[in-house]
């Protein structure tokens, strides 16, 4: 199934131009794994980078010293950076280098909720893979910073907008969006990547989960 909720066009442009912070790139790369439409868009944005590069003139005068034609080094295969376990095969590869454990496993968090911690190396971006049991409801909450939720499996419904998020769909909420809640409407568990920009805020989805379900 083709995703229907895509990243903001600005996020795709940031990703292609190289400006995007790492956490945005991770979310975009995971979405691209599922979305041929956005892959085409990024291909155009890459071509735009090439066309812009063509317009650059070297104003520095002195030519770059040109090395003699080097022997072309055979390119060995890139070392595999992904994990090959039955669970890992269900998680898009752009996430694999960020697992905190060599073999990712679901950890109990609260009744109906388990998680796999993901570590992003730049800044303090809390990112987690979360698995919700079918029927689980996340209470109404609002957003201060940005929160991106990418559904990897199952179905998550927004109780305020009634938007339905399936595999590859991305929900982006921030301070300008109103209060909302979520409910898992798939017969199977819903697995999502949840990333927030900034320290955990008790009013965000993640904060509410922690607060409502674990009493933290």
């Amino acid at each position, binding site marked *: *199934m*083709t995703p229907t909720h895509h990243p903001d066009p*600005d996020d795709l*442009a*940031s*990703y292609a*131009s*190289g*400006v*995007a*912070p*790492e956490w945005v*790139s*991770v979310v975009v*790369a995971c979405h*691209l*794994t*599922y*979305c*041929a439409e956005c*892959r085409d868009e990024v*291909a*155009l*944005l*890459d*071509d*735009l*980078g*090439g*066309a*812009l*590069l*063509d*317009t*650059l*003139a*070297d*104003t*520095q005068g002195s*030519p*770059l010293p*040109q*090395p003699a*034609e*080097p022997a*072309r*080094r055979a*390119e060995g295969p890139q070392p595999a950076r*992904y994990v090959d376990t039955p669970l890992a*095969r*269900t998680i*898009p*590869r*752009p996430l694999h*280098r960020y697992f905190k454990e060599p073999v990712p496993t679901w950890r109990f968090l609260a009744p109906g909720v388990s998680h796999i911690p993901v570590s992003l*190396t*730049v800044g303090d971006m809390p990112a987690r893979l979360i698995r919700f049991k079918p029927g689980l409801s996340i209470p109404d909450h609002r957003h201060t910073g940005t929160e991106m939720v990418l559904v*990897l499996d199952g179905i998550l419904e927004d109780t305020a907008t009634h938007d339905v998020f399936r*595999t*590859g769909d991305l929900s982006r909420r921030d301070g300008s969006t109103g209060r909302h809640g979520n409910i898992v409407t798939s017969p199977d568990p819903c697995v999502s990547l949840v990333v927030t920009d900034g320290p955990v805020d008790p009013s965000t989805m993640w904060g509410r989960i922690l607060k409502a379900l674990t009493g933290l």
Partner: protein
Amino acid sequence: MERPSFESIFVEYAPRVRAYFLRHGLNRSLADEIAQEVMLSVWNHSDRFDPDKGAMSTWVFAIARNRLIDSVRKTRRPEPDPDDPCWVGDRQSQEPTPERAAVELSRARTLRNALARLPAEQRRVLEALYFDGQSMSELSAAAGIPLGTVKTRARLALRALREHIGEAPE
């Protein structure tokens, strides 16, 4: 298609790649050094360059951009992997054919022409993103233009480019 020589790639792209790093604020000696590295990387990988899948410029740009992210910004930019079991849709583009190669070349030319015709203020937003490493909100703050205006300009620019690409190849 015959592979271009190192010299021809170097003469064509090394000055632009250096200019790209200078635009990103690198000092002269670092820009020289990294531009040389990028050209070697382009050369080492040039057997992987498939002219049927895109223009050489796109490919050189991608290598320069990735080097900037790795070596200068010390951050990472993961990419989707067509071999990923999670992948949805075509894994590889269709068989390369002379027709497709012609389409790619024509696309690159069309894109350059369309870029040259963009209004200056729209082009400024694209250059901020691609050359100055400025996000739209950073450009908005630096240039004193409302963020909404910056975003609108970017969208208009991309829409115009897309419309040109969508047109029949010349």
